[in-house]
């Protein structure tokens, strides 16, 4: 008898309706030589008869079998199936799912090409009862490319994360030889089966093709095993499976795999159950803790370092049985942005909670300094607000609660105001407010009380706004912050009558409930008999034809609105409407770093124009918040319609980077491009990425560069580098230096005249004592992210503070696209100044600069003060990146160091450097800053704006 290429084992239990679709997906495979082995687990709905009909219709291709008795699980039928397979390869399919049409061919091809025991492809979950059949790909990142491994040890992530047995193709002989079967009498049988298979396989191939469509029915009457998480047996089984897999790994001495699996347990398995904990009773919690504690003891401590801090914290508190801290911590686990614990500071470090300090491991886990909570103002914190009392009395609700006050971010003497806000979950519908009557500090929380007369004041529309969310908006000394009401062990009771605007026919009550994230919400319900009937009518209407029509109409209208305000249409408005309006004389639009700052040469020029009292209209562009921008100018948000209109009608554009590339500049407008620094790295058309572009793409780039009417130049170096790289014409070059550097040149002149350095008011503002030397660390932008996806300092900042804190104050300014977090231990000795708009006053203040490749070196050199170059990643930066115009090592006017120790040495010899490098600093200034003479702003005003004086 010929052996088929692939046997697909289709298992079924009481699923006669969907079984034919599953079988058909195998029969329709592009690979023809496939057989179907159906195993029915003693269904009572005629599934087996369906299977037999297929067998009769496709003799030789379809065979149907039954288990001896109902097994109630998926493992036993699959085992029976394996016994009956004849193909060289075996796959599994559940009766409610389907195979992708090319699945067998793709898997067979991969298997034959590589000789792998297992070929695995992408499984896609299709949510069948959502509108567009929402799809999510099962661990797609494992399947981004074709990959073959000789052993699963080469790819622990596969072992740990993809625990499905169905998206795979197994060599039949491999299953038989290794006696691979599904275990009986336990849930999650896939996990143990696949663990055994992975570990036995001599070669495994992954293909990026979709092979298996897992159909998910959210509203299924009988929830699947994984949805019944609240059943304790479920958890017991899961732990048992984990123990068995641990034993398999231990047998083989695979410690790395065990660690990877531990990490997954903390990140995934445990989190699934922890999330439900606030909604469970005490008995459940105790039993859960009991079961967990034993298993957690077997988890490697290193695993805690490799998961997110809150995941580690929850696992630790669970193991310690610290319920008072665990339940709030779970709130943060569910709502990642939330701060649910009062936090505590000790020895300059921030800890999640008090206690456990005698346990070194606990201290490490609970240390959340790096998360940076301590640096955030109250309006950037999402504080836990626990509802402590809920009383409903006929028409109104009385609520009491307490708001967490981490590290006293809400000061004891702060003026507090608050209001409760009820708003429909569907955005842009109505909201209603109720005053918070009592607000007072109570230990490390803020206690509040409020009453809301919902019957009188809450007026929903009905039908479209059935869910109402509740927020407490708190105002701390004028700074707003928003909290949600967490229901933890608080009894919610009774509905309240309301009068929807669409009559009480549609609903007559609101009823409290807890949202999936654990927050208080209300639901519109019908209690009266009539209301129920109307509700049924409405449901029918909404899901019927008129409803569908209305909904699609609404969606179309929404899409249209989105289209109208889209970028394309804004561009059209700019070119076809605004650009036809007359140019407004004496208007200047300023922008610095794409609107992110009020800084740099545009600022210096603007301030000079104001100083001279010129008569003109100034418009400043901002991105994000207008805070920090000048009050005496018109502020426009970048990319808003007013912004585009201002640009279209301006007489002058002043900017240091680029106005949106696609905006054509009118010939009547003059574009003063101040640029933002001399170049070390290749720029413009000297960058490989632009060189590699086609001529057409380059031409488009050139068009945006050709908008520059004037371009500021600091030295002939700029002419050879920037001007050439941007292909600028000689006549656009303005050799006047940078307005932003006028202050630096003048500072140096003043210092020479006085014979000493004067500190401006900034030193006092930053709290820097007189006797400390100020160092500024200003590295360039880096893409890399650390553990929390942020820029990490290349040196130990606590060690630095310890070593040098008595003599130096270190200011840290990260690139405006990066962000650093400093521990409180270094307070007063290391200061983060990244949020300041303008770097120039900081340069003026600093007695020395530490940088790497940032163009700030060219500006700072003008002060003739010491520089240190900390280029820890020099080779990588210079060779793998886009290349440099000159060799920094050769021209650097200060020591170039690569390691932390050398960096410390350079700081120790800081005083002597002022002398040692005096000559090379002079050469550096001459080469890179010859036109910076301190009068750049003035000479630009003279040349372009003098006629605007009053």
């Amino acid at each position, binding site marked *: 008898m010929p052996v088929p290429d692939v046997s697909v084992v289709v298992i079924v239990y009481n699923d006669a309706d969907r079984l034919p679709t599953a079988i058909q997906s195998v029969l329709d495979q592009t690979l023809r030589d496939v057989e179907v082995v159906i195993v029915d687990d003693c269904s009572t709905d005629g599934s087996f008869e369906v299977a037999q009909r297929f067998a009769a219709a496709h003799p030789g291709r379809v065979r149907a079998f039954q288990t001896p008795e109902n097994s109630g699980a998926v493992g036993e039928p699959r085992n029976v199936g394996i016994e009956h397979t004849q193909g060289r390869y075996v796959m599994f399919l559940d009766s409610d799912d389907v195979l992708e049409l090319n699945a067998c061919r793709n898997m067979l*091809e991969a298997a034959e090409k590589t000789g792998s025991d297992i070929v695995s492809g992408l499984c896609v979950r299709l949510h069948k009862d959502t509108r567009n059949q929402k799809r999510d790909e099962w661990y797609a990142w494992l399947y981004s490319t074709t990959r073959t491994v000789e052993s699963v040890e080469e790819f622990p992530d596969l072992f740990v994360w993809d625990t499905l047995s169905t998206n795979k193709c197994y060599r039949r002989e491999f299953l038989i030889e290794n006696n691979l079967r599904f275990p009986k009498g336990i849930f999650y049988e896939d996990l143990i089966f696949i663990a055994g298979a992975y570990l036995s396989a001599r070669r495994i191939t992954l293909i990026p093709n979709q092979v298996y469509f897992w159909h998910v029915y959210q509203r299924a009457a009988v929830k699947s095993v994984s949805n019944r998480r609240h059943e304790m047996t479920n958890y017991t089984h899961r732990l048992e499976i984990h123990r068995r897999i641990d034993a398999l790994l231990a047998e083989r001495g695979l410690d790395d795999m065990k660690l990877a699996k531990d990490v997954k347990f903390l990140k995934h398995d445990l989190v699934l159950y922890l999330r439900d904990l606030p909604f469970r009773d005490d008995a459940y919690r105790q039993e859960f803790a009991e079961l967990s504690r034993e298993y957690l003891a077997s988890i490697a401590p290193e695993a805690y370092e490799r998961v997110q801090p809150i995941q580690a914290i929850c696992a630790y508190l669970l193991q310690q049985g610290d319920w008072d801290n665990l339940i709030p911590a779970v709130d943060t686990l569910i709502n990642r942005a939330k701060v649910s614990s009062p936090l505590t500071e000790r020895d300059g470090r921030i800890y999640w909670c008090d206690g456990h300090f005698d346990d070194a491991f606990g201290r490490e886990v609970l240390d959340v300094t790096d998360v940076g909570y301590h640096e955030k103002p109250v309006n950037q914190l999402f504080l836990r607000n626990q509802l402590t009392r809920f009383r409903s009395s006929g028409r109104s609700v009385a609520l009491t609660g307490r708001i967490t006050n981490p590290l006293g971010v809400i000061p004891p003497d702060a003026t507090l105001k608050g209001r409760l806000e009820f708003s429909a979950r569907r955005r842009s519908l109505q909201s209603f407010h109720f005053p918070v009557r009592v607000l007072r500090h109570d230990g490390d929380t803020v206690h509040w009380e409020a009453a809301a007369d919902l019957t009188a004041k809450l007026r929903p529309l009905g039908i479209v706004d059935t869910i109402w969310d509740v927020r407490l908006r708190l105002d701390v000394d004028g700074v707003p912050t928003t909290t949600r009401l967490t229901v933890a062990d608080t009894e919610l009771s009774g509905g309240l009558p309301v009068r929807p605007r669409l009559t009480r026919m549609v609903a007559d009550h609101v009823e409290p409930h807890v949202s999936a994230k654990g927050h208080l919400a209300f639901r519109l319900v019908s209690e009266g008999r009539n209301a129920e009937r109307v509700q049924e009518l409405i449901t029918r209407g909404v899901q019927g034809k008129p409803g569908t029509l209305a909904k699609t109409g609404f969606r179309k209208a929404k899409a249209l609105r989105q289209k109208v305000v889209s970028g394309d249409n804004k561009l059209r408005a700019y070119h076809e409407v605004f650009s036809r309006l007359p140019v407004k004389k004496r208007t200047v639009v300023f922008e610095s770093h794409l609107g992110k700052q009020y800084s740099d040469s545009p600022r210096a020029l603007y301030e000079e124009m104001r100083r001279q009292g010129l008569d003109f209209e100034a418009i400043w562009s901002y991105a994000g918040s207008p805070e920090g921008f000048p009050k005496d100018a018109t502020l426009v948000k970048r990319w808003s319609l007013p912004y585009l209109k201002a640009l279209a009608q301006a007489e002058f554009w002043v900017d240091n980077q680029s106005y949106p590339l696609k905006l054509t500049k009118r010939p009547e407008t003059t574009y003063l491009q101040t640029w933002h620094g001399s170049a070390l790295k290749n720029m413009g058309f000297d960058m*490989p990425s632009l060189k*590699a572009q*086609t001529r057409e793409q380059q031409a488009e780039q050139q068009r945006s560069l050709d908008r520059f009417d004037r371009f500021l130049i600091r030295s002939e170096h700029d002419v050879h580098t920037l001007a050439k790289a941007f292909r600028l014409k000689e006549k656009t070059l303005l050799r006047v230096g940078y307005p932003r550097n006028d202050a630096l040149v003048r500072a140096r002149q003043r210092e020479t005249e006085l014979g000493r350095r004067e500190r401006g008011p900034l030193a006092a503002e930053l709290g820097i004592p007189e006797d400390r030397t100020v160092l500024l660390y200003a590295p360039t932008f880096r893409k890399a992210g650390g553990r929390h996806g942020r820029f990490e300092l290349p040196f130990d900042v606590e060690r630095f503070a310890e070593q040098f804190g008595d003599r130096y104050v270190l200011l840290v300014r990260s690139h405006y696209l990066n962000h650093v977090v400093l521990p409180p231990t270094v307070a007063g000795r290391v200061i983060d100044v990244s949020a300041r708009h303008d770097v120039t006053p900081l340069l003026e203040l600093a007695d020395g600069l530490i940088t790497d490749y940032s163009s700030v070196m060219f500006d700072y050199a003008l002060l003739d003060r010491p520089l240190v170059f900390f280029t820890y990643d020099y080779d990588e930066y210079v060779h793998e990146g*886009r290349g440099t115009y000159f060799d920094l090592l050769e021209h650097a006017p200060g020591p170039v160091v690569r390691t932390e120790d050398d960096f410390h040495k350079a700081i120790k010899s800081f005083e002597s450097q002022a002398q040692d490098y005096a000559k090379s600093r002079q050469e550096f200034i001459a080469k890179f800053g010859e036109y910076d003479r301190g009068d750049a702003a003035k000479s630009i005003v003279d040349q372009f704006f003098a006629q605007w004086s009053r």
Partner: protein
Amino acid sequence: MTKSNAAEPRDIFFVSNSVNEMGGVTSWSHQMARLFSERGHRVHIVGVVPPPEGRVHELAPDVPFKTTTLYTEHPPSVRPVRSLKDKLNLVEQRRRAAREAGMQEQAAKMSALFRAAKPGGVVIVTQVWAMEWVALADTAGLTVIGMSHESFDTCRKSSRFARVKRFYEDVDRMLTLTREDADRWIRQRMDNVGFMPNPLPFFPEVPSDRSHKCVVSIGRLHEEKGVDLLLEAWARVAPQHPDWTLRIYGSGEEEEALRKQAAELGIADTVDWMGRTGDVPGALRESAVFALSSRGEGFPLAPMEAMATAVPCVAFDVAPGVHEIISDGVDGLLAPPGNITEFARHLDTLMSDKDLRDTMGETARTNIQRFSTEEIVPRWESLFALLER
């Protein structure tokens, strides 16, 4: 391999835009057609339209395969219908109707050819434009393979991207040039994609001994080939190597501009403009280093030929096909796209070190044989077999 070992003979159709339009696809399809014929298969090359004027690749007189061109002249081209205005454009509508009728007629001709094929026949569509006609033809009982002879990135930037997704969605196999390109197509949810590298065009008996101090570039002088980048890089290395020359083979619209650029860079003396050559093996035999400076590529034949001649390559790594052919640091050197500093550094490395040239050159000659015709033809035949299972 002798004929008796060959797989069962099949009817194989190649369907291209043109039977003999100058360019890579034509060289490739003629080479494959010849190889398949030698294995006993019956090969027929179908072109949709005649090649455009001035771009005719003269067919050898004794080709062992049949050729057919459907149209006698290029069919009317139409613009896509986007707005109501387009729908109301009557002239355009008439053109469209004429074109569609013509397409049906030509597809019928193709159906007749296909129906004459024996079971097991294969249709290989080399370009997606030609697929629009194949889609209308009757391919019942035949295996249809659609090919994309360019890198995923190049295709993505062009209008072909949408058409590949539409017209190759249901073919039995779509083939790209490399595994990497195939994976990227698969992630576009084209689950019928596989890959097949191009075969080595020739394998010379006598390789280069790499002693002529000469860097060679061969290709059309078109911006896509990036000769401007090569000149920039050359300007950085030429002064250190006064005894070396850069030989540029090929002609094209850019020639004037490139000569001017060379003069401006002050390297006119060390660059020889060789024009188009009919003797690629000869040109390669007299070179020591091959430079591939393209801005975009698929599975480039020129570096394969250079490697077969034992000449190591320096190339911009612009496509999966490039690093599939050249193993960086083993049998050639790769620079990131557009990075002329690195490209120049690599040229300098190979020009300064005869031993390294020899090692890499000889390794290249060995390694490139994984794409020899003896390797590639059986891969095709087993693909045909797989698609029948």
